[in-house]
């Protein structure tokens, strides 16, 4: 008996929704980044669950989902690094990490 991949996808959807809600409703830059990480993780979950139900057409064919999840992981790490550097720069300029203060690019 295995885990039902459908429910994993549902979970992934819920986590994604929570993540996006966090991005929208919080003003702290660090929290924003955590929300983004949540979304990425949700995506990864979906990928792996889908990979699980992909038939084994060949030895390598079935690994696509996991490899993708792996690459996403790496990119998430990179993005977190850069994002945090941006947070530091923002803090240096504005004295706080409130993202609403970074609104120079407007009409």
């Amino acid at each position: 008996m295995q885990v039902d991949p459908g429910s994993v996808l549902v979970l992934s959807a819920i986590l994604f929704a929570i993540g996006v809600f966090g991005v929208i409703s919080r003003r702290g830059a660090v929290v924003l980044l955590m929300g983004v990480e949540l979304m990425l993780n949700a995506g990864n979950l979906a990928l792996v669950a889908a990979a699980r139900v992909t038939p084994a057409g060949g030895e390598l064919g079935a690994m696509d989902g996991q490899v993708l999840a792996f690459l996403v992981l790496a990119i998430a790490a990179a993005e977190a690094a850069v994002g945090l550097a941006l947070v530091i720069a923002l803090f240096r300029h504005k004295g706080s990490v409130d993202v609403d203060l970074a609104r120079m690019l407007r009409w």
Partner: protein
Amino acid sequence: MISLATLFPLAIALPQAAFWGLALVAVVAALGVVLHRNPVVEALLLVVVLLAVAGIYALLHAWFLAVLQVIVYAGAIVVLITFVIMLLNLGPEARGGPGPLTVVLGGLLALALALLVGRAAAGLGPRVADAAWNPQFGKVAAMGKALFGAWFWPFEIVSLALIAAMVGAVVIAKRRLEE
């Protein structure tokens, strides 16, 4: 490779129940991340979420990925976040958050998203019979073969991306020369 099955007999025996448990933990922790005021608490709750997800990976037999999740995400990224929180001495977020309109709208839309995707996904039952599942699924060797075989180019490019991110982070975060 040591089979995780020997370490978590309950997980093997009742994978679905285990899944529900881990799912619950993940959701609660995630809500905590987005709702709590203190950044340190949020970071710790994030770790909980990540570990739960790692557990789910394991339940799905994606062993390698589960380990990677723990090492990279929980081990490196959250640590980085914690570094920054400590560096900037971030306290609890001040009162007077975003306007209620934004929150409500955001919440409703997020709910809508979840419902939509969930409804689409829920019908996705086990498609393949047990016997047809790839026994190599989740094994390191298979992963290695894929990474250095068909996925070679993306792999190298992602490494480049990592280097670029490193350089970028350094450039963005370093002090200005005249300071």
